[in-house]
């Protein structure tokens, strides 16, 4: 899971709160999650990412705060002086267990690798909701050669919407649509991606926590049973297309690029790239006949 380390600089005003009985200081404006991280307490998160505005929708990071009627999302609640926080109380464990269990009962979490250990820790049992609980029940959408959308795996964390919108790309090609359990991420009238405003920056894919969005290269290798993440090498380099200087991480398997990412804490990209940096690598492997940008629109 994500953790954000923010050491307290001497010049900054610090806020001190109590976490599980110990005092922890974070810079003013820091969150309870920051405090937990500073105290070395691991916190499960799904919809939180350090390069996106917190939406506190998944509710798996909830903690108990003294004098608060309900639990509070640690990712987005600012630490206030004197707050008394419990991260492992009966109530916290119950809600975390249930959030993960609810998701497991309705969403395909088979590739949400980071959630499995948390589900085990909290004793989530997604199988206890009868024989046929309603699920997302979505088909894989393959609309181009760059990335696929498998909304059976979607936990509706809003990360892709944020990355497409205000937090990174400002393209606004997708939105949450519908309501309740019928809510889905969608383009306008659910038109195919090539017909939408999508510019194929792939920033939505990069922030997806459950592999509902996958690079086509990864999807194809998984389909062939040949996705071997543990064997992949990651090579840092700088994008060669323009002068901005975005850091790239080239993920390679069998000496072929299978995925391109950028470090979320990189000062230039904050983890976000454009279509060239993200997908414009085919020339590396190309014979002269293979150079094309495979958008398909």
């Amino acid at each position, binding site marked *: 899971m994500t953790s954000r380390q923010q050491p307290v600089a001497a010049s900054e005003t610090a806020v001190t709160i109590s976490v599980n009985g110990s005092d922890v200081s974070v810079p003013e404006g820091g969150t309870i999650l920051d405090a937990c991280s500073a105290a070395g307490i691991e916190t499960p998160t799904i919809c939180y990412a350090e390069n996106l505005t917190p939406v506190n929708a998944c509710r798996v990071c909830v903690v108990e705060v003294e004098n608060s009627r309900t639990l509070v999302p640690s990712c987005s609640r600012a630490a206030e002086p004197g707050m008394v926080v419990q991260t492992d109380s009966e109530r916290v464990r119950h809600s975390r267990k249930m959030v993960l269990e609810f998701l497991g009962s309705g969403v395909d979490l088979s590739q949400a690798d980071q959630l499995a250990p948390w589900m085990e820790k909290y004793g989530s049992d997604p199988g206890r*909701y*009868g024989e046929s609980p309603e699920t997302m029940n979505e088909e894989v959408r393959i609309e181009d050669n760059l990335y696929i959308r498998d909304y059976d795996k979607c936990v509706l964390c809003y990360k892709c919407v944020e990355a497409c919108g*205000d937090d990174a790309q400002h393209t606004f090609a997708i939105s949450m649509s519908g309501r*309740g359990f019928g809510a889905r991420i969608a*383009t306008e009238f659910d038109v195919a991606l090539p017909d939408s*405003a999508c510019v194929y920056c792939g920033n939505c894919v990069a922030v997806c926590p459950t592999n509902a969005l996958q690079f086509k290269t990864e999807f194809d290798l998984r389909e062939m049973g040949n996705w071997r993440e543990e064997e992949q090498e990651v090579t840092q380099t700088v994008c060669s297309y323009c002068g901005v200087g975005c850091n790239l991480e080239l993920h390679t398997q069998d000496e072929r690029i299978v995925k391109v990412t950028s470090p979320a804490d990189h000062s230039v990209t904050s983890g976000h790239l454009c279509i060239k940096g993200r997908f414009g690598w085919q020339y590396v492997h190309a014979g002269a006949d293979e150079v094309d940008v495979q958008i398909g629109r």
Partner: protein
Amino acid sequence: MPDLHLTQDRASSAEMAAVDAALATLGVTPAVVEETERLVRGGIHRKNERRHALLPALHALQTESGWISKGGTNYIAETLNVPPAEIYGVASFYEMFRVDTAPDHDENVAHVCVDSPCLEFAEAKIAELEADGTPIHRSPCLGQCERATPDHGPALFIQGRKAANSVPSDSSDLWDLPQKHEYGLKLLKNVGRIDPTSLDAYVGAGGYKALAKAFALGPDKVIEEVSAAGLMGRGGAAFPTGVKWRGVAAESGTKHIVVNADESEPGTFKDRTIMEHDPFSLIEAMTIAGFATGAQKGWIYIRGEYPLATERLQIAIDSARVAGFVGDGIARSSFNFDIEIRRGAGAYICGEETALFNSLEGFRGEPRQKPPFPTTNGLFDQPTAINNPETLLNVLPIMLEGGEVYGNLGTEGSSGHKLFCLSGHIAAPGTYEVEFGPTLRDVLELGGGVQGTLKAVLLGGAAGSFVGLDALDMPLTMEATRAAGASLGSGVVMAFNDTTDFDAVCVRIAEFFRNESCGQCVPCRIGAVRQHEVLVRTSGSKLNGELKLLQDIDLAMKDASICGLGHTASTAVLSAIDLGLIG
């Protein structure tokens, strides 16, 4: 438009004219983007000054075409500078907007209420209308619960196609208020007695004396009086109004008064009574709120299924503006306060105050994280006092009689008068006013008594709880209901006799919450579905081991949901199990 990516679909000229007319009413002009301008898109960016016109534009498009057409969406996108994906996201959120396909007919659509107490009459009515070829939409509570009788059948709302919306049972006659001839009414004193469309009649009945008193007192003293009266919110949360107003008054800059008239809690119709039959009182009361807090702008967010109330409020605002009671320099003072009505489009969650702000601003009606609270970060992220209509109505007698006098009415913990919405198996359903204090039995007697043998009463609506016969002597006050583990909520008193199919009633309550959850947070989005599934599969039989599952779901929704919808989604169902009504 250089920057928005649109599909090839184009709006018809009728659609463009309908949207243009709606925007002209609001004074919103189409966006013009200069070639050299760096475009501020309409995304989550709060600075788009046109985005708040999205819901009115969508209403116009829906009425014209019977759905949110692709071409119409593109036209709105260009006009308001909002990305089409976000328009689709907003439109698909609401009950009253159709987004899937164009309708295959040009008819009005009949919305038939399927919530209690309409539930027992709904299917027969739907069959009857379908036999006539009328297009049907099964609707959650339409806020006409007093009409759910064997003679009338379920509540109906007619969504107009190229025509105004209407409610068949609405009439222009003065309403026959059950308590019309009683003295001592403070909140309903004008209802059924004066012409609700006449400012002269309102002034003749003592209208605008409270505003004059407020002007004489000054803003600080007004808030002191409201605080001294111990006024607590009547929408369900019972938050002290004086504290809320004091908070807004302490802020600077542009401030708002928002009336939360999105009355959607099943069983609630009191605010409709007020708005249809005494709209001037609400206008006067919110003007006092604006004066006290220093707000310049008032908004009434009214549920989309209240056409008569909307019409009468608009008449009231217009005639008050002509007479100098709304607008700049109210009653020749230096106080400026304008009022605008915005219609919801069918979403229970938009009664949650921060969801209401998002909806009014043209975003999906998803609740925001609190803190920050509306008093500092409300509508358009500006300081806002948001109140229920009944709450505001209490301000008038507080001004006229003084806070202390009004505060002495009622009981120790519940001061003043209260409206109750009596419905179900009761002789004379309707909106009733009491001074806080009467017991549940007294209130049921006020409505002519229960028809048949009473089995249970739903207090506070679908978000409230069932109480049994042992609660008949419980005073209907905030403190007594709280002590009994129940809540007054919005004042719903729904009686059920021993002929009731409680399995059906509870399955529907669970279905209501799964349908109305906005879907933003996991505990509510999935928890409400799992709860509904348990009730469906155990309906008519024993719960056996499933009670533990329901309790686990309940605790997670109560503890970890973002807003009150999730917090209360299990309350009624679990209370029905406790009372042995189901399971």
